[in-house]
């Protein structure tokens, strides 16, 4: 009997607890928030937000020790990799999660929403993003995508007595699961053809074909389109504006920054490690998606009268800029390297400037109870600090020095030029034209804030809560410091490399 059992013996996987420590800390924080919430009364509700914030900061400690250690840790036969690239992105997700907690604290406490549960779902979503940064296996990528998306669907509907919020949640959910289904079909086809779920094993098998088989093209296109929904690339963007407008504003900030970044991380993992050899498939797809996304996003943003919707469409346009380097990534290893760095740098800077812009919108909406552009009129006369901060973030989004955005945009141009072929140059021109269009609507909001009169003459100053002030200070400092001394950022992003595993 024992011998029979022993014949079923399996090798226990080697689990590197140090490498998994950031994820374990976040998961443990989730459980602690759950327990605190279950065993304390109404008057201790504030504890959930504090514990969630502290947990996210504590999880940065193992990220720092792993980065200091510097070794690339590979687990589960290559399915889970903790390297410089993954660590930089985990730090991004943890920090943007922390800023979102700061933004949420007053909003959720004052709005009579479910509080403990809100932070539990937020932590679960951040955990999914962290797993995504390390996932190098189709199944891990899918599971991480679901873990980051499903709590986000529910958070979008958190103002559940408001029909707009319900609409936001349902739209996001339906489009999201539809995209997941398309993506899963693509994954199943790729697995069927290559016989492996590991990206590092898929790459040689689909890369060695001289031309792409229809089945491989179909699989890659379906998988990439699935993530096109996640990053709200045109024509898969239709959910984004309604969801952004209806969802609670801190959740909108979370979706526009962290969730979008996670989608890009998945695209990078898939393209650089798995589909690398098939640039004849993904390059044209990314080219079209990038050009459409930035152009249509910008053109619709021009017509918006609501700041949150404007930021939603500007976010769509920004996603187009971030997609652009993927359109030339396969032309040479140097171009690939440039493209990877430019995307990661853009994601980090985009997180800081966009979260900052949302923080200002939330602070102003506390007084005006609205996010219409008109209500920002004369903001400078009664809230000069917020106006200066918003101007900094808008300059950054438009790519004007000294705010950080210029450095991100230069990176995109360098990457597009590094390919040295027509498609790269044409796309660079498209990016340049779009940057000019974007000036129009960023500039309009700026003009309203600095020049216009206060709409109802009410110039009582805005009382900004401490947590939003903290979020503003963090994001503004990051935006300004990176803009003036980009070396601070490139120090962390220079060592990253994804290609080593794919070949």
């Amino acid at each position, binding site marked *: 009997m024992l011998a029979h059992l022993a014949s*079923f013996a399996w090798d226990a996987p080697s689990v590197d607890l140090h490498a998994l420590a950031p994820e374990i800390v976040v998961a443990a924080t989730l459980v602690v928030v759950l327990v605190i919430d279950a065993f304390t009364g109404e008057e201790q509700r504030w504890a959930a937000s504090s514990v969630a914030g502290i947990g996210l900061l504590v999880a940065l400690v193992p990220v720092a020790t792993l980065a200091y250690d510097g070794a690339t840790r590979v687990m589960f036969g290559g399915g*889970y990799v903790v390297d410089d690239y993954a660590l930089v992105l985990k730090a991004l997700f943890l920090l943007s999660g922390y800023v979102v907690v700061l933004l949420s604290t007053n909003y959720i406490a004052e709005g009579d929403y479910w509080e403990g549960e809100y932070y539990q*779902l937020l932590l*679960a979503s951040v955990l999914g993003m962290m797993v995504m940064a390390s996932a190098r296996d189709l199944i891990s990528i899918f*599971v991480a995508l679901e*873990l980051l998306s*499903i709590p986000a669907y*529910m958070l979008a509907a958190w103002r559940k007595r408001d029909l707009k919020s319900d609409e936001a949640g349902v739209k996001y959910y339906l489009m999201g699961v539809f995209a997941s289904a398309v993506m899963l079909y693509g994954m199943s086809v790729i697995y069927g053809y290559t016989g492996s779920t590991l990206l590092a094993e898929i790459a040689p098998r689909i890369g060695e074909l001289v031309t792409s088989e229809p089945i491989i093209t*179909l699989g890659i296109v379906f998988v990439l389109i699935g993530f096109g929904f996640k990053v709200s690339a045109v024509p898969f963007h239709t959910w984004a504006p309604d969801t952004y407008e209806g969802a609670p504003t801190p959740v909108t900030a979370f979706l526009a920054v962290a969730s979008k970044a996670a989608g890009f991380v998945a695209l990078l993992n898939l393209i650089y490690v798995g589909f690398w050899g098939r640039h004849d498939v993904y390059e044209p797809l990314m080219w079209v998606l990038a050009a459409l996304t930035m152009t249509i996003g910008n053109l619709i943003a021009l017509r918006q009268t609501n700041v949150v919707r404007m930021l939603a469409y500007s976010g769509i346009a920004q996603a187009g800029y971030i997609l652009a380097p993927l359109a030339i990534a396969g032309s040479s290893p140097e171009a690939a390297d440039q493209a990877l760095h430019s995307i990661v740098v853009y994601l980090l800077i985009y997180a800081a400037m966009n979260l900052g812009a949302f923080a200002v919108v939330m602070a102003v909406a506390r007084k005006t109870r609205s996010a219409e552009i008109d209500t920002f009129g004369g903001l400078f006369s009664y809230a000069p600090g917020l106006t200066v901060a918003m101007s900094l973030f808008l300059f950054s989004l438009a790519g004007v020095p000294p705010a950080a955005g210029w450095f991100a945009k230069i990176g995109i141009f360098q990457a597009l030029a590094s390919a040295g072929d027509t498609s790269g140059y044409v796309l660079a021109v498209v990016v340049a034209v779009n940057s000019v269009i974007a000036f129009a609507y960023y500039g309009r909001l700026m003009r309203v804030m600095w020049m216009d009169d206060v709409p109802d003459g009410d110039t009582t100053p805005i009382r900004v809560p401490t947590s939003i002030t903290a979020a503003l200070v963090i994001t503004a400092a990051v935006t300004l410091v990176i803009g003036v001394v980009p070396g601070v950022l490139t120090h962390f992003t220079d060592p990253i490399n994804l290609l080593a595993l794919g070949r």
Partner: protein
Amino acid sequence: MFGLLVAQNIAFYVIAALIVFGALRVVTCKNLVHAALWLVLVLAGVAGQYILLAAEFVAVTQVLVYLGAIVVLFLFGIMLTRAKTGHDLELDNPTPAKVGAGVIGVLLLGVMGYALWDAWRGQELGDIVVQRTAEVSDSLFSTYLLPFEVISVLLLAALIGAIVLARRD
């Protein structure tokens, strides 16, 4: 061996025809409860195909999860909400939407069908490898340990969120 394969092929096509018929009925019938019951036929047929492929664990999971949980959930959802349970003529889309959906459906079928046919035409499966359930569990707790653990967090989060969104307050 040859006889077994022939029998298997016949069974495959019979079940496949049933699945296609059931799937068409799901989208065409005018009664929501009947549509859910036709879905049972589709999902059970898929389970049957898994058994033909000697993937017993997947087949059992398909029956447990899809037939046992998801369709039952559909039926509960229909009956506990104020949805009409009888024959409902409004359970239909306008003609342009139907035509559009039909065209897209046929196009997708053509593209996906051609890609599949092109990739695996003329390939014989050879001996069917029976995957023991023990092997599935081995890989679940070694290679795929991390996704397995991540799913447990996912279920916890889904549970919390579902309770918050569904409860009346």
